[in-house]
């Protein structure tokens, strides 16, 4: 007799098992490590329960890194969404389909670059002496400028690179969304002598509300992955002005102290925070 396994069971079970093991085992380990006092240089460790978490809240660097992460998140998400919508409208209004296709290809390129490459390309462009981006300033004012070493501009400069990768990419998506809209509402609004910006503000963008919210959501998740850019461009500096949560966790666990239990307790807090926040957001968005 031939044993028949139903297709959904055969196709879904292995994946769910693999993903489940790969996601939950590390999560459980992360919590476990966070409750110990493990150290990369010592073999012995024991449970200290919540001591790591308690000391986190009196750690000024930790509090600082929450602030930096928050500013980073708000800055990159808002500039990405605003710039991408604006660019998409410009393309939709002012270019022929052929030009649009060329622009789309060019605008997708930055996001495909490894973040390490993007970070290096811009780190060199902002080099105070030999950089292409700082050259105009040097030529006009006769002195060099180091945006990445200045505490008040470093984070914004790194955020510019993030926007370079994501806003251009998203503008292509928003353009395709605009192209997929039916033309009748646009024509009706034009007959009513609506101004161009009014058509977009009151007709087109409200029609795209759901996909724009999804895009914002995706960008919020991707913005959490700022580590590569910051690691290559500033290493959290100058001082701790660009030290995000993941950068601080990394430097506690690997660069300075080797204190992986402390780093893990930060990671656990991040995990709880993002999972709770995004689950609530997702459920609300999806209704």
């Amino acid at each position, binding site marked *: 007799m031939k044993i028949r396994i139903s*297709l*959904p069971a055969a196709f*879904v079970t*292995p*994946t*769910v098992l*693999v*993903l489940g093991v*790969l*996601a939950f085992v*590390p*999560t459980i380990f*992360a919590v*476990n*490590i966070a409750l110990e006092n493990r150290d990369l240089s010592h073999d012995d460790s024991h449970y200290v329960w919540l001591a790591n978490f308690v000391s986190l809240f009196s750690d000024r660097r930790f509090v600082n890194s929450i602030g930096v992460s928050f500013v980073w998140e708000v800055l990159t998400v808002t500039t990405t969404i605003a710039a991408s919508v604006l*660019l998409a409208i410009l393309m939709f*209004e*002012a270019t022929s389909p052929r030009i649009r296709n060329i622009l789309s*290809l060019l605008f*997708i*390129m*930055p996001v*495909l*670059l*490894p973040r*390490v*490459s993007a970070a*290096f390309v811009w*780190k*060199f*462009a902002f080099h105070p002496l*030999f950089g*292409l*981006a700082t050259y105009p300033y040097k030529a006009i004012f006769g002195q060099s400028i180091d945006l990445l070493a200045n505490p008040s501009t470093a984070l914004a400069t790194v955020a510019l690179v993030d926007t370079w990768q994501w806003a*251009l990419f998203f503008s*292509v*998506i928003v353009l*395709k*969304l605009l192209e*997929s809209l039916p033309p009748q509402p646009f024509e009706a609004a034009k007959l009513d002598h609506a101004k*161009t910006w009014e058509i977009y503000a009151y007709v087109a963008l409200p029609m795209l509300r759901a996909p724009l919210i999804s895009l914002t959501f995706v960008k919020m*998740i991707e913005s959490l992955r700022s*580590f*590569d850019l910051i*690691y*290559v461009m500033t290493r959290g500096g100058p001082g701790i002005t660009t030290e995000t949560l*993941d950068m601080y*966790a*990394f430097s506690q*666990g690997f660069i300075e102290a080797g204190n*992986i239990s402390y*780093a*893990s307790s930060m*990671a656990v807090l*991040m*995990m709880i925070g*993002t*999972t709770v926040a995004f*689950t609530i957001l997702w459920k609300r968005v*999806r209704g």
Partner: protein
Amino acid sequence: MKRRRASGWIARGVLVAVAAFAVVPVLWTLLNAFKNRVDIVTPVPLLFFTPTLDNFRYVLGRASVEAGLLNSIAISGASVLIGAILGLPTAYAVARSPRKWADDLQFFVLSLRFLPPVAIAIPLMVIWLDLGLYDTRLSMIVTYTLLTLSTIVWLAVPAFKRVPREVEEAAIVDGYGPYAIFFLIALPLAGRSLIGAIAFSFVLVWNEFLIALMLTTSDAKTLPIVASELTQLGRDVPWGILNASVILLSLPPLLFIGILSGFLNTVVTKKL
């Protein structure tokens, strides 16, 4: 009408500037990769110079770059392959199952993306150390499978949903079983979008940095790690070599630009 035309030209001017913003930094890096050090370290950026292949020759001749390249190919390739073999059938089953159920699984797959990479990398480092697999290709492949598998399922479900049910119903009438329908009908019909999803997951793991940084030290280092180490070199920075290594690292993802922009078209115009 005249004002309309003027604003159109302004818009086009802005777009040209943005296009330059998108491309020039990368082109400049490409140009610098062919320069001798003296042509890079100049007070005024040089557009014309005598090109040299020394930078590429040096980078490609380095053992660490070669090892990183082989590791990246092996690790990204294997994890994408496993992700596709496990993920495509799952995505198909999910696309053909009741909506509520499918939504839950899609959310589970997406929620894996909420996990901060640090939060995965720290415990995995301990686990791989305990198992004696730290800094091996095997441990990196297993770790990256988490990324490729969840991404492929997430992107392939909508692709299979777009395969018309009527075609499959016709196949049932012709006597095809459920597995035959998947392999002979659904898979080829969704093929183009599926290749896009697979290419996307490849770019994702090829570019991955943080997890590789924490889970490898020498034997299994991937190319992004090797390249970043080159960028951290000391005082007499070999700028030309850096630019060349960044270009080499960026080439594979850029090869997929055609596939991915086509994929974007199908995803956005028929879904979302």
